[in-house]
């Protein structure tokens, strides 16, 4: 009531203006991304430790990962990052239909990534290249090959969960775009989703060479 001037509906009551609200949200998102980096950082720490401990085993076991599928997935995910960025650009220009199309494209590529991952996983599960106690493949001579697959499955698994969560958020942002929630003045949720999605992409860009391309 004390606010004489009219405020837009998407401006929350405790912020003075849109700039403050947008800046706060972006900062919050960046800080959250830092926690994501540290979450994966723990796993990268495990990776480093065990690769240093069993270098020959890592070298031998990694040959059983499918480089062609991994490479395809890398391109798929990078493309999805591009469409995500284009979606933000489209909303900045106020082109709602384009935004929806690009978001749908991002969803599509994310889906393709998971489908390819599914084929990779099921192939390994069939052959018994599984983590820890579940391991029963006998093609690798070096000691403790199950450790490699423990690292492989936890790292790509956690990443896969992030892709899945990303898809849910992108879908939600898409629905909100259809509902006309966004405009060139207010599109922050799309941008924040983009930040998250680029991080998920970036983590894969580290995972791919560290798991598929060693040696």
């Amino acid at each position, binding site marked *: 009531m004390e606010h004489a001037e009219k405020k837009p509906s998407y401006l929350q009551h405790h912020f003075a203006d849109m700039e403050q609200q947008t800046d706060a949200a972006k900062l919050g998102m960046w*800080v959250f991304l830092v926690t994501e980096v540290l979450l994966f950082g723990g796993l990268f720490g495990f990776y480093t430790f065990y690769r240093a401990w*069993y270098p020959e085993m890592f070298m031998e076991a990694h040959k059983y990962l499918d480089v062609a599928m991994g490479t395809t997935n890398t391109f798929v995910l990078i493309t999805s990052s591009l469409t995500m960025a284009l979606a933000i650009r489209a909303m900045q220009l106020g082109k709602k239909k384009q935004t929806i199309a690009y978001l749908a494209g991002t969803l599509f590529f994310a889906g393709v990534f998971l489908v390819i991952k599914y084929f990779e996983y099921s192939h390994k599960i069939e052959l018994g290249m599984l983590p820890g106690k579940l391991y029963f493949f006998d093609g690798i001579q070096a000691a403790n090959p199950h450790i490699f697959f423990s690292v492989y499955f936890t790292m790509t698994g956690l990443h896969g969960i992030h892709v899945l969560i990303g898809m849910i958020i992108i879908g939600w942002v898409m629905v909100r775009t259809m509902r006309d929630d966004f405009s060139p003045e207010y599109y922050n949720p799309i941008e924040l989703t983009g930040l998250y999605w680029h991080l998920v992409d970036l983590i894969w860009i580290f995972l791919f060479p560290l798991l598929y391309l060693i040696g």
Partner: protein
Amino acid sequence: MSVATTANYLNEEKGLKSWLFTLDHKRIGMMYLFAVMIAFFLGGVFAILIRLELLNPGQDFFTADTYNQLFTLHGAVMIFLFIIPAIPAALGNFVLPLMLGAKDVAFPRLNLASFYIYVVGALFALYSIVAGAVDTGWTFYTPYSTTTSTSVISMTLGAFILGFSSIFTGVNFIATIHKLRAPGMTWFKMPLMVWALYATSIIQVLATPVLGITLLLLIIERTIGIGIFDPAMGGDPVLFQHFFWFYSHPAVYIMILPGMGIISELVTTFSKKKIFGYKLIAYSSLGIALISFLVWGHHMFTSGQSEFSSMVFSFLTFFVGIPSGIKMFNWLATMYKGRITFEAPMLYTIAFMFLFAIGGLTGIMLGAISIDIHMHDTYFVVAHFHYTMMGGTVIAFLGGMHYWWPKIWGRMYSEKWARVAWALIFVGFNVTFFTQFFLGSQGMPRRYYNYLDQYQPLHMYSTYGSWMLGVGFLIMAYYLIYSIYKGPKAPNNPWGGLTMEWQTTSPPIQHNFEEQPVLEHEPYDYDTRMVVNDQLIKKEDVKEKENINV
């Protein structure tokens, strides 16, 4: 519940729903306070039971297994459910926006979400008690935690979920402090409590995810056996300790830093003197946050890490004492020649400085490798960390609670009973834990439910002390709850504080301030400003008036 005539955050909206779905940081803070107090009560009961068993050697009340579960629950509940959220999420949530002159935290919905995530995490932790409790100690060391038959999974899952709650609070506070400061409040005009909460949030955000992934891997290890912590499968159990302490050592600073922030506020308010070395106190909070990440190995001097790394960790452990020492001396210098009054919050401040000095200095002793080899896993360590965690954090928390109580409820508590409770807690604490320094140096190992007869006298005193503590806390619970209903009305600024939370009504209105406050002075300008009848005035104005009268 209160009959205050003016509209405020407590009475503006009514009904259970208005509390459960509130986005108001003050109400969320109070719900947190309620929850952490339940946890504190539970953890306290476990502690009393542990001490009861230790009154006499041999088995008295509990079997060895039950005893193991009791100390694990005491540790896990006190750490994950009480100390970590107590100051930031409960008191911090209430005072942070008020101190910044803001209407709310940056993300009110995230704030409420963090509370409910806390509740879910707490339910998992409590479920583990029903489902056979955990007996690993709160540290969940492998390989025991992957092989014991007790319900490790629900407890670690609980801690994992609580981590998210902690991260969300941290993210929220960082964005709030960066973006929602009142006009005029530059970084170096922020109250020191805010600096402390900022440093705490940084640690929460950086360390908690690593604990998250570690506990997640522990759960996977237990369920499907991925072998990375299992030496029989080529894994390394000590790796778990490294990862656990990478979080859990910084976590002890998550616990102590906000306590130090409270003490900085209290010491200057009750000395009515400008804080000594404002910038150094602010920087030392950040210094502690930084160095805290580099000392985790001092928990592992006896676990087989290389002598060289033990040496480096020992050096860095001494190093982390420096910023704490800086704070200590600055507080003392603040009191020097101040006009000190000894209301309950100040009594807790004095107690904090006394007890934390002992806790800190024994920490330096334990950081020395040769002494630690001798003292490792004895009661000396138990006494040391209780002097920092309880003598430090809990005492500071109580000081802060007494300090802001009139602001929170708009009511004053009984100063007389507050002093009685303080005396019981202070004396009871020292009787309980100072004896344990002797026990430890004589070789009494921790986590044992039985002991040699020679230790009995000291154990007996320690148990008597725990009863004193219990009585002190019961008295406190009584007069605090009584004050909410029957206490005399509190003025807006009962202690003459200069920070912004005292410039609004007690209890504050829903949007905190009638108008956007503007900061026109340094946070602790007691040499030029004073508070008379809730009004903040310049001292020179008073002098001018007096001159006219003359």
